């Protein structure tokens, strides 16, 4: 795991992770101060939930994907990938180690967000609080499942086409899956189109992994059948992306 340690050390050294960590810890407490929760204290906890998860989404989509793309490009460009290949670390292994290094930064941020939601924004009712645990856990796992696949894709695309492509494609896919599919669905409701319907149906519907509104409206935990179907669905997309990433990943730019 030498490439993993090298990647972790490089990201640590760049220190941008500290901005994300600070934002994730401080913004859920600072942002409600500029919301209407200052006038209506009942809204303080919903405002905190929104701030916490939205900060995490923003940090991951911007910093996380950018870091993944940059590491993927650096590995191919700087000759590190080629060096590790000569020492017997295969391309797939390199992809996994870089991916795991970036993932090790995103996972604690996700856990911190879930912890803030759990302890600083949980409902007072004991029955609702037990559901709160489950929902936070479900949200964290779906979030990590979605982010993990896009990180792998960002690294692989960046290693072949450069960090700009790796970052923008993964970001665009995430935004499309989170909200673009919703707009497409609205268009289809106005006017049915079989081609667009097919595109919508086989689009990565990341919106299912965004459970912020369930937390906000205290809708309770997802039914376990729906949760496991979602887990299977995202695992399927993960496998597709993993396969594509393996095919796409390069340890050196010229190969």
């Amino acid at each position, binding site marked *: 795991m030498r490439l993993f340690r090298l990647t972790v050390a490089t990201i640590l050294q760049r220190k941008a992770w500290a901005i994300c960590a600070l934002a994730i810890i401080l913004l859920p407490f600072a942002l409600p101060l500029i919301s209407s929760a200052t006038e209506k204290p009942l809204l303080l906890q919903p405002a905190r939930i929104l701030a916490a998860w939205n900060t995490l989404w923003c940090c991951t989509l911007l910093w996380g994907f950018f870091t993944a793309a940059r590491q993927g490009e650096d590995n191919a460009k700087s000759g590190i990938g080629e060096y590790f290949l000569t020492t017997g670390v295969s391309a797939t292994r390199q992809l996994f180690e870089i991916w795991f290094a970036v993932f090790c930064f995103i996972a604690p941020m996700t856990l911190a967000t879930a912890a803030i939601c759990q302890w600083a924004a949980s409902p007072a009712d004991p029955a609702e609080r037990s559901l709160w645990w489950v929902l936070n856990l479900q949200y964290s796992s779906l979030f990590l499942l979605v982010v993990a696949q896009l990180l792998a894709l960002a690294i692989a695309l960046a290693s072949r086409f450069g960090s700009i492509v790796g970052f923008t494609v993964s970001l665009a896919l995430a935004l499309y899956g989170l909200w673009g599919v919703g707009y497409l669905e609205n268009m289809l409701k106005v006017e049915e189109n079989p081609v667009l319907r097919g595109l919508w149906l086989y689009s990565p519907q990341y919106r*299912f992994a965004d459970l912020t509104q369930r937390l906000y409206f205290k809708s309770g935990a997802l039914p376990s059948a729906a949760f496991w179907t979602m887990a299977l669905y995202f695992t*399927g997309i993960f496998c597709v992306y993993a396969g594509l990433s393996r095919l796409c990943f390069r340890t050196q730019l010229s190969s």
Partner: protein
Amino acid sequence: MSPLPSIVLSTGLIGAGALAWAFAGRPLTANPDLDVPLNPLGINRSPYGEVFAMAMQGPIDTFYDAGTSSAGPSHEHTTQAAPEEKPATTPEPEPPSLNARLGSLLSSLDEACELRTNPNRASEALKRHLRRQAEDKLRFAYQLDPSHYGNYNSLHFFLTEPELGTRPELTPSAAKLAEDTIQYCLKQDDDPRPALTAAAAATNILHLMFSDQLNATPKYSPAQMRQCLSLLDHCLARFTSISLEWDQTKHWDLLSPQRIAECAERFQFIGKIRDAAEKTVLRIEAEARAHQPPADI
């Protein structure tokens, strides 16, 4: 790993993943319980949405002024208003501080950005486009916080504004907007201000019903007007009762004096409209009674 098994493994992963994706995707997309209204970052109707909705009033004014102003080369509305306000706020002639100078520099740059230097007047198509943009922004502000008095009334005004086409009838969009607003506002138990917005929506429905009476065959009966009037009374009573709760819990102290005064002013204004509306309903009822006996026979 040699290339062939590696490619086979990747292809296998893609194939298996695609199967799971397709297999699990259908029940998820078909499940109505998992359908969440489209709301990026959950901003609409959130505590942040309420603040952004207030902050959006400035940009809306800019588009509205540009869209409705008939001025040619200059932007008279804003350039004239600024110098008039200054003497009123600073009555004593003092040398302006650095902050004040920076503030005036920024506002002059703001004006310069919006200044129209084209000697030709804005075309009708452009003005219509700008008005449409103002309407879109008003709708966005309304979606951010439907219970905001200003947001709702501005959008309603725009929908029924004569410049966009005279619509004396109770138009479906304006009526639906009012009904949606009332429905949303009456669900808000923790704040008296949405009740005022609901009351304003009820007065707007009444106004559109009264305008409908000018038609040869009015669609709305006096009974429907009376029903709307009682809804208005309910909204005002709700405002009063939640206000009293806020008095007891000292919630009003969390608001600035200007916003409290704004609420009181709106309450009085709607009260006056309500009294006038009641007189109109009484008059229409009397007219209906006068016309009814011969029609029944």
